């Protein structure tokens, strides 16, 4: 995995709560056998009409949203199916962080393994970000994983939580599977002692 570096970006606001992974990437796109190419289909049924033309009122189709790397999402983002195709589609599109008040557990795990940072903020900050977006749709935030801070357009820095292990893995581009493979002795000892 690539190292996660700090970055600045404008925001794509998507206020809906409980956005499930079926909306992020509908099941008919799960027939792929690799991880690439799903960005085009991100939020497909909200983003495109039946004839494939873009739905003008969907946020990702507004021309100024192009290239933005932070998604500002509603509470309990990524609920439902465990499909890792959801973070593959989000990163394939170009997102590097999702900001919300909470994330579904499996989605959160899957995101961390794909260099997509789930940034949990409190309700007040969350509401403030949406009102900032209303006042200035081009407002920019900074995401710094090293200091675990999200810096708002007014300069206020908000700390976000992340466990030390996931943080180290993201910052150093650690291959978690390689890390566990390094514990083969312990796994073998456990297997020898563990009755089925």
């Amino acid at each position, binding site marked *: 995995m690539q190292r996660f570096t700090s970055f600045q970006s404008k925001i794509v606001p998507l206020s809906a709560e409980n956005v499930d992974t079926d909306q992020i990437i509908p099941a008919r796109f799960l*027939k792929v*056998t690799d991880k690439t190419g799903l960005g085009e289909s991100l939020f497909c049924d909200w983003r495109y009409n*039946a004839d494939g033309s873009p739905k003008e009122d969907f946020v990702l189709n507004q021309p100024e949203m192009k290239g933005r790397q932070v998604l500002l999402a509603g509470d309990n983002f990524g609920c439902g199916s*465990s499909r890792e195709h959801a973070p593959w589609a989000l990163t394939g599109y170009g997102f590097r962080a999702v900001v919300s008040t909470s994330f579904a557990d499996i989605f959160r795990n899957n995101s961390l393994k794909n260099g997509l940072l789930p940034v949990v903020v409190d309700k007040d900050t969350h509401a403030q970000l949406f009102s900032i977006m209303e006042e200035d749709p081009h407002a920019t935030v900074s995401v710094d994983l090293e200091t675990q801070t999200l810096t708002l357009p007014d300069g206020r820095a908000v700390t976000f939580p992340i466990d030390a292990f996931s943080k180290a893995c993201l910052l150093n581009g650690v291959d978690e599977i390689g890390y566990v493979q390094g514990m083969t002795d312990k796994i073998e000892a456990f297997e020898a002692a563990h009755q089925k």
Partner: protein
Amino acid sequence: MTNRPHTLFEKIWNAHVVAQAPDSPAVLYIDLHLVHEVTSPQAFEGLRRRGIKARRPDRTFATMDHGIPTYDRSLPIVDDMAAKQIAMLERNCEENGIALYGIKQNADKQGIVHVIGPELGLTQPGMTIVCGDSHTATHGAFGALGFGIGTSEVEMVLATQCLLQRKPKTMNVRIDGALRPGVTAKDIILGIIAKYGVGAGTGYVFEYTGDAIRRMTMEERMTICNMSIEGGSRAGMIAPDDTTFAWVAGREFAPKGSAWDEAVARWRNLPTDDGAEYDATITLDADALEPMITYGTNPGMGMHITDRVPDPAQVGDLSQRNALQKALSYMDLQPNQPLLGHKLDVVFIGSCTNSRISDLRQAAALLKGRKVKDGLRVMVVPGSAQVKKQAEREGLHEVFMAAGAEWREAGCSMCIAMNGDQLEPGQYAISTSNRNFEGRQGKGGRTFLASPLTAAASALTGVVTDVRTMM
């Protein structure tokens, strides 16, 4: 380990920690890894890139369920991408020495992964069980810790038989009281999710307790645990008891002879100790429950079948009001309208929630000697080839077909609508599955989630029907 009382979850967790460094997730050993065709190709490709094979193929079992057709299996698969995924799983299992219950190999035991695990006796109390599928929570019905994982984690388990996991909190979901006629396990879990919401279990593992749970059959317990994820919890568990042991005994992969006696003795220590503490507790009164139905676009948008659709104007919280408005707009429903009598286009009886033999028996009992409503499409999709065979032994297939329903081969089918079994845009379905998300059963399709009894009753009338009026 101290002598303080432990919960069922803690006992299983503690028994599977291989390593635990400070400030790091635990390295958790996985006893049973179930694999299906849709979330595994990239994981096997990862192994190939690393130049390794599955570490414990003897603890890994695969099936095909999500993308396979449910029509006659001797016909070719018309979807090239689905066919490719199926071929890849066959190749990956072959290369790694993994037992496959597919549409060619061991086809008599193929089925939905969460139906066949228990059916084959692979699922046993005290185990850690994972699968690249969120409904792996189903296996918790046996007093196992079962949870869904992503494809990167599938690769990790294939490579190491372990997962890196942060210890979740525990929530006691206590259900007391007796269900009234026409009310089922499905209504209990829909009732809990409607009451507490789809995010209530985030960060927690549910343990279902209470006398209503104790009285349940294993199949009812599986239905409850299956939908833990719809309440936000990755895993839902039920302490094993004699009902559990009787169900597991004699199955293909269950321990035999003295090993069985030793296993049962061990399993009897699993239930939560008196005085053990949960991080949170929620409750539901089974006595007060009616048949449930969802009206919206997440499983928490549910109500008693006799209730009326809620009015967004009465919802105080702005974002919840917006969510309800958006859901009603998608469902094309009006505030305060009843759902009873609402016209249906499709009835789907199936999925890992409700496709077991008891579900089919319940539906068949209502449909016997009757006809489904003209113009209504009714699909009955058994959860596994073995369920299908058992149903046919009992003549249930004849009941369904004589009533005018379609009798299909086993698979996920219209629950996830990847295989061509799907709603047309705008259609309404009553479905025994677990998700009513926008487009879940086909782009533009609209889903009412309910029990097999409610689905079967509605199949006869062509409209949303309270089964209690037919009993």
